[in-house]
């Protein structure tokens, strides 16, 4: 018997409870529905909820906690547990678990280890059996107890609806929990990082080389965690992306909303939206294997030294990706400018381009700024293009032909692969993540505020 079988039996019991409850309700009024306060199905659901919900909650909590409980019992029962460091203890526990399920064990199997493994298996069985017993007892108790409430005047519908309402509210708070989870996990790990590396060094240091020493006396072991080169690299690539995306996106939006006939507009707009739907890894591939070699060869032909991981390649491709963000948001904003403004300008004899440049764009400016800020926040947080096309070495340079690295690239390189979780190296990724989260969040908040305020102006 395993967890999924247990969950299935709870489900079966709940379904059974539904039919029992419905039947009892019908029988309570001898088939005369009009005498029931609630529909028979509500009585059925009431029984099913009482049978299934508490049992399901116990099941989920039990499944999550059982491993921790078993481990705590196991460590308590080990005679040598107090003498071991945390890491050694972890390895020992891992070996015991592996031995218990018959996997490869990293050390000599002595009788003590075997006994511990047996104890572990026994603990596992006991814990699981008690979980099964508790869950099923709760389910059956709920099934039996709730039936006693079924009388013709029982307000089953209101009770059931109250439960559903609680479930709805619980779902909607998940958004808050997610935000809180993001902020807390980033903050918690970043604080641990700032215990190891001073906050000012991280924020203002000019050198980034995240090595940590394996031994105390290692040469060049002291890692440098100055994030300025990363911020500069991110800024450079974002800037290149915006130089590509802002004019193209804005001009496309102006043409589509002001000049293009309906037919062109309705076929070109979805085409531009396709650019936003392409997975970023595809852009990364395009940047790394097509654009970067092309720029390098082109640069060599022009007598320029272009790195094969140049900021230019990553920036240009990122700009292409961002075009639709700028264009569709600006399009909305331009369309929201009232027609009377255009008519007024035309009446004064302005040409269409003069109307756009001197009337519509100034009127739409806050919204356009907002859309460009949203696009910037998208570019700052973009990961795959830069991971695949930008470099790893932290160069502090403003030359777009050289290789730079970005915040997201460093987060990925620091965290991909198996790493101990308490070194400054991995924690640095969380500090970077926190910085990026703060920057993108404030950009978004400001941009949304600007766009919203602007919308209200013409509503």
């Amino acid at each position: 018997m395993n967890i999924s079988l247990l969950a299935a039996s709870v489900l079966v019991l709940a379904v059974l409870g539904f039919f029992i409850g419905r039947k009892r309700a019908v029988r309570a009024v001898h088939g005369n529905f009009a005498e029931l306060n609630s529909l028979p199905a509500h009585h059925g659901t009431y029984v099913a909820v009482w049978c299934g919900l508490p049992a399901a909650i116990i099941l989920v909590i039990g499944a999550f906690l059982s491993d921790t409980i078993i481990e705590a019992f196991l460590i308590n029962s080990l005679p040598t547990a107090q003498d071991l460091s945390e890491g050694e203890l972890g390895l020992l526990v891992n070996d015991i678990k592996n031995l218990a399920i018959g996997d490869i064990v990293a050390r000599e199997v002595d009788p003590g280890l075997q006994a511990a493994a047996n104890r572990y298996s026994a603990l596992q069985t006991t814990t699981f059996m008690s979980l099964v017993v508790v869950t099923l007892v709760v389910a059956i108790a709920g099934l039996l107890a709730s039936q006693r409430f079924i009388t013709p005047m029982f307000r089953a519908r209101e009770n059931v609806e109250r439960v559903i309402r609680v479930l709805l509210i619980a779902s909607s708070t998940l958004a808050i929990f997610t935000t809180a989870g993001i902020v807390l996990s980033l903050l918690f790990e970043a604080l641990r990082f700032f215990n190891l590396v001073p906050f000012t060094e991280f924020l203002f240091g000019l050198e980034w080389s995240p090595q940590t020493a394996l031994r105390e006396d290692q040469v060049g072991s002291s890692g440098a965690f100055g994030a300025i080169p990363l911020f500069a690299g991110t800024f450079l690539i974002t800037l290149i992306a915006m130089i590509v995306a802002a004019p193209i996106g804005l001009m496309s939006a102006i043409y589509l909303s002001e000049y293009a006939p309906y037919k062109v507009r309705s076929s070109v707009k979805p085409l531009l939206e396709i650019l936003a739907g392409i997975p970023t890894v595809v852009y990364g591939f395009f940047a790394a294997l097509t654009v970067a070699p092309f720029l390098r060869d082109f640069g060599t032909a022009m007598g320029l030294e272009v790195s094969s991981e140049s900021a230019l390649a990553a920036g240009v491709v990122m700009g292409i990706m961002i075009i639709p963000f700028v264009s569709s948001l600006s399009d909305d904003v331009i369309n929201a400018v009232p027609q009377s403004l255009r008519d007024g300008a035309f009446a004064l004899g302005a040409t269409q381009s003069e109307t756009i440049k001197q009337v519509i764009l100034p009127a739409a400016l806050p919204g356009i700024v907002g859309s460009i800020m949203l696009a910037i926040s998208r570019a700052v947080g973009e990961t795959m293009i830069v991971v695949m096309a930008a470099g790893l070495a932290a160069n502090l340079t403003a030359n777009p032909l050289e290789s730079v690295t970005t915040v997201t690239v460093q987060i990925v390189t620091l965290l991909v692969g198996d790493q101990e979780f308490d070194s400054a190296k991995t924690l640095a990724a969380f500090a970077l993540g926190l910085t990026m989260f703060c920057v993108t969040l404030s950009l978004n908040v400001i941009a949304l505020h600007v766009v919203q305020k602007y919308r209200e102006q013409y509503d």
Partner: protein
Amino acid sequence: MTDIAHVQRLHFTSPGTKARLRRRRAAEARFRAYGIVAIVVSIAFLVILFGTIFSNAYTALEQTHLRLKVTFDASRIDPQNTGDLEVIRTGDFGGIVKAALRERFPEVTGRRDKRRLYAIVSPGAVFDIQESVIADPTLIGTSQALWVIASDDVDMLMKGFIPRDVPESDRRLNDKQIAWVDTLIADNHIEKRFNTRFFTAGDSREPELAGIWGAVVGTFFTMVVTVALAFPIGVATAVYMQEFAPKNRWTDLIEVNINNLAAVPSIVFGLLGLAVFLNVAHLPRSAPVVGGMVLALMTLPTIIIAGRAALGAVPPSIREAALGIGASRMQATFHHVLPLAMPGILSGTIIGMARALGETAPLLMIGMVAFIVDIPKGPFDPATVLPVQVFLWADSPERAFVERLSAAIVVLLMFLVLMNGAAVYLRKKFERRW
């Protein structure tokens, strides 16, 4: 009066006015041209992007095979003639392939040359022959002409990606190897066949043996977990926020949170998954279940926002009619409003899923980048997904991976097109204008 008319006539036809008008019209034409250029440039980018991918991808549909006369030497496979499959499994099939190659090219001597000769056949050929013998042990002792899979370098040569006219040291294949391939070509003993392995195999270090099926299955499990979590929670949230929530600080807070989560960079969700699901909850690394949970959190805002828009588009008269004949608010919502809003919610969900399908960065954080050969059997097995597979192959130096990853991208894009098409269809077919 006549004076003014005279002045104006002069004014409109004066050379200065004409020049100004020309300038203004030229500026108008220029501005319009900028707009057209901008659109042409973005569409050109789109065309180049797709062109690059498709032109790289189509060659992956074929894989080069060599025809070799293989002798299933009993002394190498089953010397004691036991007929036991376990014994056969441990037979020296590598030796059989090598012997077949030596027999085909008897003129090759010298260890270095022999090693180069063996390199024109993929290591996978050995397993193929092993499997065919296990499937049919009567082959032992016979001699068969078989098509075996060629190495990736030979494959690249046959597809024209290894140029023959560069110096020998700049090529992955040397002159002798090319000469052997040429004899095979002359004898018609080498041909390109449909690459079924690409669609049925898991990942491999050898490009000619690598396939996308493992990643497709991993993607499937991940998406199932994502839908199973994000859809009910997203719909419940949308229903609560749109139909029941009182207007107060708490619901404002939820709303602000949802809007902000929609704009959080995806990699941050990966960091959340790493810190909470892996390090606190100790869920398995590289498992689709964790990937699905992270992607569900990421997709939730999309579903909620689409769901609220769809629910808001249902006219109040529907609710009022239901309430008027005695339904409770819950019944009015779940029996009438929600079913009417379902097409909109579903198409929003599909679009959210399409975004999740193409997402790579958060999955890198929770270890779904591991090199996994086996096809996952459930959401708790280590797995990878299609976009991550593309990323992994893009990191490999072999030229043959380029066509395979392009083909994987094409498969990914096809799924995306299907999903977006389904969303558009749902919207067009079922959405009502009130």
